[in-house]
């Protein structure tokens, strides 16, 4: 009952005109960003953080805006998958497999609205899952001391590699690189400068927002420049939408699919290191194995093949918020970016968030429900508008992305130095993407580096310099075991799954959800 009361309070916070307008704006922008190939949820949210920040929005309104963008992008990704056979973002990859064949059969409108409904179902029930699971996780997390936290951070990094890259060594490299970047600046405990090389600008450390926007948004601009990919992928003749409502029989047929995929997607989202891409992948392959054993209909425009990945990826998007809010350890790229939002608003996520800032948590959860309903309402009638957005050529869009990134970062600090650092990160992001090094562990490293180190030092100081304190409690031993299994398991069985999952994606290794 407590939970429901808190939720009601959350709605009281979220249901102001100001917040509703922000949610609406976020949903709209998010859908567009999700739909446009090249702009996914992580860069969409990344570009908007500095803006929300410089506009002086409070904690709850900024979170409402940015999570609406997050959910919106999850909805939007399917549009170009279905109409153009090009995933708008990585989680929407699996939707191409059956969505595009459906569109070719002249059922594009039905595929779009069905996937809209599936997205709604996935996200709606995942939000309920978040409400009930997060407080349970908080109860466990309250038992954590510094040693357990250190193990938990290690677990996050070690399991992240399992899905985010095809090469475990490269994820480890990325994580270490991110952690190393976080070390720059004055050491918080002893006050000595580290890795600053006498540069005064570096004493405060690198602003992780600068790193995020550079790595995600600017590197995308370089990728487009490299290929001189300036024209829109869509053209007006190719896109014929047709009937916009799914027949009732189709909804009925796909209901069990949606239910199963929601559960699977949610679980995939909660797991550390796995994001929405894995959610949609698991849902699709499970559904295929279950209802289409001989491979007759899947891949040829089966509505269930559209509903499964969409319900799965949206459920995973909700599930990924569970560890982010309850433990402060994000499991996917976009939730890492959302963690950056919280940190830059001076809110530390984790178990204490629920007791110290209940307004933020429950306002956010209420906002998720509101955004979800808005998205469903927006997506079916406005599909025509969104398909037209797909025709904006990247040669116009990409400069806007670059310029808005510069505006946002300049707005925070007003210094050219930060802009130069951002360009540096953009170049680094481009090179690393060429080399198939995942960017998400880098971001996670810069975000969590300092608190990981603080926990390590606190744990050892408490025990008078005894390093074995790190593996001193059953809880931390369990966490280390999961971490080690999570790191080794993908080495053994992961290759096959990953090869399948990464098969249809573009070679640049786009950013995981």
């Amino acid at each position, binding site marked *: 009952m407590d939970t429901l009361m808190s939720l009601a309070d959350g709605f009281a916070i979220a249901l102001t005109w100001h917040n509703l307008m922000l949610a609406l704006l976020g949903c709209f922008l998010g859908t567009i960003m999700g739909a446009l190939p090249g702009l996914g949820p992580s860069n969409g949210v990344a570009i908007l953080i500095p803006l929300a920040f410089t*506009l002086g929005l409070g904690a709850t309104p900024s979170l409402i805006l940015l999570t609406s963008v997050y959910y919106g992008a999850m909805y939007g990704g399917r549009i170009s998958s279905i109409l153009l056979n090009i995933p708008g973002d990585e989680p929407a990859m699996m939707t191409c497999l059956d969505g595009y064949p459906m569109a070719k059969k002249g059922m594009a409108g039905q595929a779009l609205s069905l996937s809209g409904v599936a997205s709604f179902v996935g996200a709606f029930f995942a939000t309920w899952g978040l409400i009930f699971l997060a407080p349970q996780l908080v109860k466990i997390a309250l038992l954590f001391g510094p040693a357990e936290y250190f193990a938990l951070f290690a677990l996050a990094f070690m399991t992240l590699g399992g899905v985010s890259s095809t090469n475990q060594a*490269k994820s*480890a490299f990325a994580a270490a690189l991110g952690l190393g970047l976080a070390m720059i600046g004055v050491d918080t405990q002893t006050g000595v400068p580290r890795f600053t090389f006498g540069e005064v600008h570096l004493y405060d450390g690198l602003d992780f927002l600068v790193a995020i926007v550079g790595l995600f948004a600017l590197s995308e601009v370089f990728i487009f420049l490299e290929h*001189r990919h300036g024209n829109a992928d869509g053209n007006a003749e190719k896109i014929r939408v047709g009937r916009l409502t799914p027949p009732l029989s189709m909804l009925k047929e796909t209901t069990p699919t949606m239910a199963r995929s929601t559960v699977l997607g949610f679980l995939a989202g909660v797991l550390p290191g796995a994001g929405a891409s894995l959610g949609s992948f698991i849902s699709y392959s499970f559904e295929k194995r279950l209802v289409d054993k001989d491979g007759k209909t899947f891949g040829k425009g089966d509505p269930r093949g559209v509903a499964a990945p969409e319900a799965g990826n949206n459920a995973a998007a909700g599930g990924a918020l569970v560890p982010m809010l309850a433990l402060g350890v994000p499991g996917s790229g976009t939730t890492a970016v959302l963690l950056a939002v919280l940190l830059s608003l001076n809110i530390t996520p984790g178990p204490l968030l629920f007791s110290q800032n209940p307004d933020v948590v429950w306002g956010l959860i209420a906002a998720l429900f509101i955004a979800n309903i808005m998205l469903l309402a927006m997506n079916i009638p406005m599909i025509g508008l969104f398909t037209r957005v797909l025709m904006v050529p990247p040669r116009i869009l990409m*400069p806007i992305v*670059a310029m808005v990134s510069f505006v946002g970062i300049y707005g925070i600090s007003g210094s050219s130095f930060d*802009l130069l650092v951002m360009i540096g990160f953009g170049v680094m992001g481009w090179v690393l993407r060429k080399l198939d090094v995942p960017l998400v562990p880098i971001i996670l490293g810069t975000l969590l580096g300092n608190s990981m180190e603080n926990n390590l030092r606190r744990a050892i100081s408490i025990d008078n310099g005894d390093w074995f304190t790190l593996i001193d409690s059953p809880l931390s031993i369990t966490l280390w075991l999961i971490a080690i299994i999570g790191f080794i398991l993908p080495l053994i069985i992961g290759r096959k799954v990953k090869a399948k999952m990464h098969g249809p994606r573009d070679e640049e290794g786009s950013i995981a959800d």
Partner: protein
Amino acid sequence: MSDRIFGVVGLLIAIGFAFAALAIEESFLSDAVGPKAFPLIIAAVLGLSSISIALKPDASPTWPDLGRFVEIVAAVVVMVLYAELLPVIGFVFATALAATYLTWRLGSGPIASVLTGLGTSVGIYAVFHLVLGLSLARGPLGF
């Protein structure tokens, strides 16, 4: 081959990082762990993963040819100039120039590029400065 070079470069970075970590001056008031230990652990992970990348390389990615490569370098130069000139000539001019350049290099015609660049710049100025009140770099003309 790319991965072997990458691994070697990574290893050099790790060694450099470790040296920089050893050079950290410890203050006399230090905790049990000190400011050096964690950076050294990171350097070790960085080094080990670099060695592993160099020993077991993936297939090389397709690198752009020289022309495309120059293209990216040129874009970086333009962006650096943009960052440096922003406080000098003001947001609207700097942004119009940079956006024009990027649009042009992504394949618009010269006139269309100038128009898009101007539109982008004025549009961002209108939305972010006039409507939302964000403070942008001011040039000699006040915008």
